[in-house]
């Protein structure tokens, strides 16, 4: 018989608010095997852990039940606590009375009743627990960074700097991400290219970094320390190793009418292209959707002009398989579509643009060579209206936009407004805002400068409608402080579109078995204390894939994620999972059912000598589990017709005991 201690956590009011913790510990006191039961405000705190340690010593406990938050949160903590007190860590079971009880049930009686039942199930299980000893697994000392924007770049550089090899997978033909499209960066106004492109070159030159551009993650298997990843290197129809990036092909290609995504479709590129001058890798890519040669078999101009002979129309997608110890998601963001906000006439006038388009318009390498002109007629705009919070901070019931604040818009709009007034003092600039949110070092000072020194008109209110009339945009807006409705005749309207995670993030999260929130941002293992780790071991988060953030914040988080990766890769071995399958050889009849269902090939058969009751010996074929290979899924336990196969930590008896406890 076990001697079980029950420890009920209040989690402040998180649990105690909906669950009568005293009643739970009292009720569990009377369960079979329980010799000690108590409750405490924060079981995971040092004081709480001391209670557990002292109780183990004092009551000679052989098993522990902690009724607390999800085992995904603190199971490891309490196992360590038990181990420190000399108890086998696998004698600890958690009853999840927070995520699966107090947080989802509203009133005290139901919450308490359910918590007691969950506690009883855990006690019933622990009664049948046995001490386990984990095996060890090696760590592949290589990291994968998915996404080659500033977040992925910084993470990769930091990991490489520590001496570990890193691969960057970027779906576009070049790394650089959104930052490469920006003109200047707030609040210091350094040019984005000037600070980003040297880092891109560092990446290209770092011996520890490989770049898989124009590539996507196809499949992820394995687990922390031992991920098996398949990467699809999409055919770019140009041999990367030979292409010198001279760009002649991109000038000679006769297909000139391809919308240039780097300039957000505001100008055209050729069917063979290098996204921008400082691209890394600087090699051309053929856009198969537009290439005449690939579509009709007639053309071949690029091949003719390429002196290096790098063009290869027969190139196929390539699958690269690689092992990684850690994976970093750095998939970034995009501005949302403005389709549902056509009161601002984005789809009705070329002169209504998003802020990212404004960046390209003011960028010296952009479609207008840095001259701020109207996309419709190339004329200089004299009145510009900026609209903030377009699609941000929308209630779910409004059925459009995002509920969150996109965080970066206030600052970049202040930047746009200021730069416009600086370069074109004859321009009237209006900014319509709901709130100006500028928390950050030197941020508010920046915004005040835009108002006080540059004379930007900040108006508290919102634009209700933009009406394109002739070559003007009639802006109807409210000025809440003056209690007036304004009608402004504008030449250009700039919408601060909300940002959302890149569409590739959700399928990636599925492959990584990483969690996401309802907005498709990756969730962190702990919102405060583990902000750069995903709850899935070995998967880390970098940049805006975790939530809206500006460049300084992105870079900090990228370095933090790198630090976590380095910490993992620095280990030679990881402690494995001891919850593996095992066969009772006396019951096994050697039928091979388990072998056939095992996805890892962990089960083999051995001929073994058994002593029979009549003292003779007989050789029988029995299953044998390779514990280093077994991942503990349990498929074999169900396939086994004789009930010989069982799973440690999730034994048939244990689960049945839980079922019984719940149905009691």
């Amino acid at each position, binding site marked *: 018989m076990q001697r079980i201690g029950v420890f009920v956590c209040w989690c402040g009011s998180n649990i105690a608010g909906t669950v009568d913790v005293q009643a739970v510990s009292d009720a569990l006191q009377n369960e079979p095997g329980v010799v000690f039961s108590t409750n405490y405000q924060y079981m995971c705190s040092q004081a709480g852990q001391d209670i557990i340690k002292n109780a183990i010593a004092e009551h000679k406990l052989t098993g522990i039940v902690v009724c607390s938050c999800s085992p995904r949160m603190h199971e490891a903590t309490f196992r360590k606590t038990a181990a420190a007190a000399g108890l086998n860590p696998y004698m600890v079971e958690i009853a999840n009375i927070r995520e699966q009880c107090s947080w989802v049930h509203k009133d005290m009686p139901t919450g308490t009743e359910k918590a007691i039942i969950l506690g009883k199930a855990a006690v019933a299980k622990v009664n049948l627990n046995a001490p386990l000893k984990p095996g060890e697994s090696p760590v592949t000392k290589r990291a994968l960074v998915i996404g080659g924007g500033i977040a992925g770049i910084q993470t990769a550089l930091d990991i490489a700097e520590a001496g570990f090899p890193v691969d960057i997978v970027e779906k576009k033909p070049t790394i650089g991400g959104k930052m490469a499209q920006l003109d200047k960066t707030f609040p210091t106004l350094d040019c984005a290219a000037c600070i980003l492109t040297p880092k891109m070159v560092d990446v290209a030159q770092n011996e520890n970094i490989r770049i898989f551009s124009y590539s996507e993650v196809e499949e992820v298997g394995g687990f922390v320390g031992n991920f098996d990843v398949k990467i699809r290197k999409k055919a770019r129809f140009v041999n990367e190793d030979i292409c010198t990036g001279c760009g002649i092909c991109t000038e000679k290609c006769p297909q000139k009418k391809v919308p240039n995504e780097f300039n957000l479709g505001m100008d055209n590129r050729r069917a063979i292209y290098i996204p921008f001058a400082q691209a890394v890798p600087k090699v051309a890519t053929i856009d198969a959707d537009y290439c005449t040669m690939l579509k009709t078999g007639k053309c071949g101009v690029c091949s003719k002009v390429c002196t290096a002979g790098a063009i290869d129309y027969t190139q196929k997608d390539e699958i690269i398989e690689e092992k990684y110890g850690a994976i970093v998601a750095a998939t970034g963001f995009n501005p949302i579509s403005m389709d549902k906000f056509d*009161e601002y006439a984005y789809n009705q006038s070329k002169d209504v643009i998003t802020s990212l388009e404004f960046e390209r318009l003011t960028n010296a390498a952009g479609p207008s060579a840095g001259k701020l002109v109207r996309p419709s007629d190339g004329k200089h705009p004299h009145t510009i209206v900026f609209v903030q919070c377009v699609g941000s*901070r*929308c209630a779910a019931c*409004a059925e459009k936009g995002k509920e969150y604040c996109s965080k970066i818009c206030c600052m970049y709009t202040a930047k746009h407004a200021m730069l416009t007034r600086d370069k074109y003092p004859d321009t009237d600039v209006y900014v319509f805002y709901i709130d100006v949110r500028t928390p950050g070092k030197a941020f508010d000072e920046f915004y005040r400068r835009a108002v006080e020194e540059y004379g930007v008109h900040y108006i508290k209110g919102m634009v209700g*409608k933009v009406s394109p009339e002739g070559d003007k945009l009639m802006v109807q807006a409210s000025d809440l402080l003056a209690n007036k*409705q304004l009608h402004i005749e504008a030449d250009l309207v700039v919408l601060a579109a909300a940002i959302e995670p890149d569409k590739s993030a959700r399928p990636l999260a599925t492959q990584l078995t990483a969690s996401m929130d309802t907005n498709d941002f990756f969730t962190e293992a702990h919102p405060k204390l583990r902000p750069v780790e995903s709850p899935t071991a070995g998967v880390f988060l970098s940049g805006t894939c975790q939530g809206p953030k500006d460049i300084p914040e992105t870079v900090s988080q990228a370095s933090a994620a790198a630090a976590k990766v380095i910490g993992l890769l620095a280990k030679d071995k990881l402690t494995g999972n001891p919850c593996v399958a095992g066969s009772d050889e006396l019951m096994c009849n050697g039928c091979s059912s388990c072998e056939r269902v095992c996805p890892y090939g962990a089960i083999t058969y051995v001929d073994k000598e058994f002593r029979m009751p009549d003292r003779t010996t007989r050789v029988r074929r029995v299953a044998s589990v390779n514990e280093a290979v077994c991942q503990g899924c349990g498929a074999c336990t169900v396939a086994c017709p004789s009930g010989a196969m069982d799973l440690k930590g999730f034994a048939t008896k244990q689960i049945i005991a839980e079922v019984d406890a719940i149905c009691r």
Partner: protein
Amino acid sequence: MNNSTENLQKEIIRSSGVNPKKCMRCGKCSATCPAYDEMEYHPHQFVYMVENGDIQPLLESKSLFQCLTCFACIERCPRGVEPAKLVEAVRLAVIRKQGANHLKADDIPALLDEDMPQQAIVSALRKYSK
């Protein structure tokens, strides 16, 4: 807020189905309102004043009868507040009282011209009278 104002506020919130607390004070309703210049209290003020129980001035305001029920504020509000429904609920609180019809049937003939469609008359009666 005294008791009767509080009850009136509750009644307006209940019958309109609007939760003024959802408002984030962006003013888009007033930015989009075609009748803005005819109103002394504008859509965003309706929301704010109902939320604060400052309802008496609204009851006396001509703004109640200037709203065109064009649903533009409802359509464009990013928070789904639906200010026009509040305006309607306040207006009903006024005209449902005995003798408080804003438009009386007897007044109508004087307002008509021969082309005026029936639709205008029934709509106005619905909006201005019980």
